[in-house]
């Protein structure tokens, strides 16, 4: 089974040109050493071959979702870089983007930056763009939350405006012909892929970033061919749009840091909203003070005041001291540091999980098994003692198996799955017998009698609320499996379970008429037993006579 599917929090995997990554870090490093060192950062190398390296990045570190970010983290950790501070010397904005009222309800926020003196070759440009793509796919939730566009600034003519526009024409990226925005949504790959990132309802107006000549980008779907970025591009304008002003601003900070790391110089852009004006990127950094005692108390090791700064540097923090409190300057490209708990983790990673000596939790506490679980275990042992093999089937079923094949009419009140992927999973099972009959059908190459049981959960709806119950069911198939044989099992199971009950003749569609009994306890029906109806046996493909019981516990 795919490992990531099993996590509740699947993690993105980035694939980078191996030589490129090494050129950004340590060119002479062997593949083994590189893998080992990336592991120390708290990341996993998924695969490494001649050309590429794939790294699983934890989803709290969007700043690492590209070669530059990974290299930055790596170089800090192994003390190859002491660049902690990112700044733009020229405070004056290079450009202005006016934001119209039309995008307010569609995609209200934009941030921007300009990078000049950019030097990309084929590999580094691909690396840069892949990083952005990964960021918008994962952290940007497939561009819904955050989208990023890069443009050749030398092809742009001010003034720039971000607003909702009606149908105009432009040539989408990698296209030869002019299209309307509507057509671009329908007729380009990106258009089809991201069409649902903008609201469909209402009059046909699309969020567009444009200059004097027309659209630079249909946001957040596709850029224009006119301003395409290539290895010849010297100056780049970046637009970042999204639903949160804070996040588009932070994303601008991250991209600015990435450009600065490539050696380019970054200029600011003024964003003029209708009622205010902001300048991006701001390259903000917050400072969080953490007492050394807290670091030691949460990690459980003695670090020592003097060692904290070195550990912090490994994770990219600049520090200063106020007595025993360490002030951590949060790097501008970090999104995930909310408070001191996040810093505790970074220091623990820098310290190395392998070096943290396990320490027992003090105080002895009494343990206890849940009483009902003990009861069920005891009953399961008794059922196995009667010669029945235990089965553990899926809690998920479908109307066909759960009802129709059992000759039962479909119960609307079963707990239903709203978003099934296949017809085989549409409800939560209401009974254990159908899966046990399937188990018998799958077992017919072993000598009979075939006897199995299950003790587990079934689900019903009662007054609009789900009800989770435990049942026990047993099935016996073979030439001697008849009413009396299963009644004998019932007697034994009921006695073992302390169930005060009696049998009453009854009819049940799944059983042969006249060979079926209802199990009644304290005036209430708690189950059935009898010989399974031959039509049911045919439905499941069972060749031998079969008797069965099912009891609510």
């Amino acid at each position: 089974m795919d490992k990531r599917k099993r996590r509740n929090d699947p993690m993105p995997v980035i694939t980078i040109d191996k030589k490129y990554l090494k050129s950004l870090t340590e060119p002479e490093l062997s593949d083994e050493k590189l893998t080992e060192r990336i592991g120390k950062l708290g990341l996993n190398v998924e695969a490494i071959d001649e050309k590429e390296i794939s790294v699983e990045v934890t989803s709290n570190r969007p700043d690492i979702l590209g070669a530059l970010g990974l290299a930055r983290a790596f170089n800090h950790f192994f003390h190859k870089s002491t660049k902690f501070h990112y700044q733009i010397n020229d405070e004056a904005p290079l450009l202005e983007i006016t934001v119209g009222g039309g995008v307010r309800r569609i995609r209200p926020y934009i941030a921007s930056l300009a990078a000049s003196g950019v030097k990309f070759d084929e590999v580094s440009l691909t690396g840069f763009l892949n990083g952005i793509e990964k960021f918008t796919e994962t952290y940007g939730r497939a561009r819904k939350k955050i989208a990023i566009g890069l443009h050749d600034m030398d092809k742009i003519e001010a003034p720039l405006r971000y607003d909702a526009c009606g149908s105009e024409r432009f040539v989408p990226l990698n296209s030869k012909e002019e299209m309307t925005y509507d057509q671009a949504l329908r007729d380009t790959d990106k258009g089809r892929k991201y069409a649902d990132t903008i609201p469909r309802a209402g009059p046909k107006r699309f969020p567009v970033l444009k200059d004097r000549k027309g659209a630079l980008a249909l946001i957040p779907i596709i850029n224009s061919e006119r301003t395409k970025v290539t290895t010849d591009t010297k100056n780049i304008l970046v637009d970042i749009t999204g639903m949160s002003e804070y996040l588009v601003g932070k994303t601008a900070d991250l991209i600015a840091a990435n450009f600065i790391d490539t050696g380019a110089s970054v200029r600011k852009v003024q964003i003029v909203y209708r009622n205010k004006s902001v300048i991006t990127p701001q390259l903000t950094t917050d400072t969080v003070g953490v007492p050394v005692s807290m670091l030691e108390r949460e990690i459980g090791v003695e670090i020592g005041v003097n060692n904290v700064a070195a550990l912090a540097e490994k994770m990219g923090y600049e520090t200063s001291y106020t007595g025993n409190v360490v002030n951590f300057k949060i790097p501008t490209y970090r999104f995930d540091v909310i408070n001191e708990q996040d810093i505790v983790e970074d220091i623990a990673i820098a310290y190395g999980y392998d070096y943290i000596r396990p320490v027992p939790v003090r105080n002895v506490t009494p343990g206890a098994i849940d009483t009902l679980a003990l009861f069920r275990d005891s009953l399961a042992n008794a059922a196995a003692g009667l010669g029945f093999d235990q089965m553990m089937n899926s809690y998920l079923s479908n109307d066909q198996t759960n009802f129709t094949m059992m000759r039962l009419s479909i119960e609307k009140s079963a707990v239903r799955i709203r978003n099934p992927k296949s017809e085989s999973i549409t409800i939560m099972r209401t009974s254990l017998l159908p899966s046990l009959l399937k188990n018998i059908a799958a077992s017919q190459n072993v000598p009979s009698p075939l006897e199995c049981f299950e003790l587990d959960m079934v689900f019903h709806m009662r007054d609009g609320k789900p009800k989770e119950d435990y049942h026990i069911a047993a099935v016996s198939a073979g030439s001697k499996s008849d009413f009396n044989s299963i009644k004998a099992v019932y007697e034994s199971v009921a006695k073992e379970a302390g169930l005060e009950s009696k049998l009453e003749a009854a009819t049940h569609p799944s059983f042969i008429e006249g060979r079926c009994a209802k199990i009644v306890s304290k005036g209430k029906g708690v189950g059935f037993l009898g010989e399974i109806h031959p039509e049911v046996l045919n439905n499941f493909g069972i060749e031998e006579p079969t008797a069965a019981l099912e009891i609510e516990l």
Partner: protein
Amino acid sequence: MHRYEKAVLEALRKGGAASLEKLTESSGIGRDEALWAIESLSKERMVETTRSESSEAALTEEGRRYAAEGLPESKLLKRLRESTVKVSALRGQEEQIGLQWAKKNGLIRITEGNIMLTEKGVTDAEEGVPAGNVLVQLSGDPGSYGVASKSSPEELSELTKRNLIQVRKRARITEVRLTQKGMDAALTEKAGEGVGALTKSMIASGEWKGKKFKQYDVGVPVTPRVGGRLHPLYRMMENIRRSYVSNGFIEVNGPVIDSAFWVFDALFQPQDHPARDAQDTFYLSGIDEAELGEKEYVRQIKNAHTRGWHYRWSTETAKEMVLRTHTTNVSAHYIFDIFSKIGDESVNLELPLKFFSLGRVFRNENIDYRHLADFYQTDGIVIGKDLTLANLFDTLLKLYAWLGTEIRFKPSYFPFVEPGVEVYAYSSELKEWIEIGGAGLLRREITGFKRKTMNVLAWGGFGDRLMQVKPGCGIRSITELYGNSLEWTRGRGGMTQCLL
């Protein structure tokens, strides 16, 4: 003469000849016992047998897999029907096998690195690759080899060459006849010297005293007894439970069907997180919306989301009912319960509190032999004062000690813990480190514990996956564990030894 031999002779004495089935029935001994007796009597020339020979094809493990999911070349054809595939795109071992056989059988041609279907390939993509069809037929009925050997000899030889089937000759006894020697023996032979079966009256009367007991052949075959047995996975879960309890943990339970609030929101998973997507999580219909509970706690969670993730948190989204994707919802309920008791003078909380839970969790997957939609997890928490990452490591090492394999911790990220840990165990079966769970110190945004010294160690673990890790279990794939047939449970011997 052994009593089984005696029984066979006795049964044959009346008719002189009988089929094996008849003989088994009239002699009153088992089939295996009768076969042994016939073999032994033939050597003494007391009986003669007529045998017929037939062949049967048994599928190898690889053959069984292909019978279920299709031959590798069939999969390739299916892909090619959708679009062209580049040779360089086929990297897996199985894909290579498919490529090789499709080429060999003239189903594809390769032009400039692109694979294309031939006319024969188009037909086979439609009707199935002949060898594959024969394989499926054999998997359903091994005896159909006889028919197939006439109708599809080429396919059979291909399947044999590919080691997908093994042909076995089967000799069957159709008739057993008594010879004159046998007849004489039947009439004169007294079944050995001494007492045969010891009876109740012999024991009571003391008649056995001074008598000699007839000696039995200890080599006589018997059919092994099959009792009922608990499912290996169930026993695995029992081991986990025992480990928790012996480490001072109390078992708790929680709902399988729960609101998104407890499964996700209370665990700081943002509402637009991909794991909450309908592609991954089962949502339920027709259920009343959940009550979210204590207002103060809901507000605390809402604030944590708004501040931490920068979006508008929706109560409606939190109210949706889902099948839990982890057992951590149970921990969330208990943490809230403890949170609400802090400050209540009448409740005496004896710290540390240690809880665990076991149960099924669900992921919305297309199920096939490799993917399951529900499987087992366990969750545990320790609530106490001044708990540390070092405490967490120690607790997990003790809980997993019974596995008898090496455990390793790596930094990782889960939204509700900080620091976060991934727990790995070494599988000597697979010769690799397997992730067996996630852990960490719960974020204070979730616990709501105002006092900075109060904190919670929390972890979740895969239940079923531990069977891959426990030395001696011999489980390579988890899906194997969900084999729910008597053939599987009966064949799955040795669990008592490995699940110590």
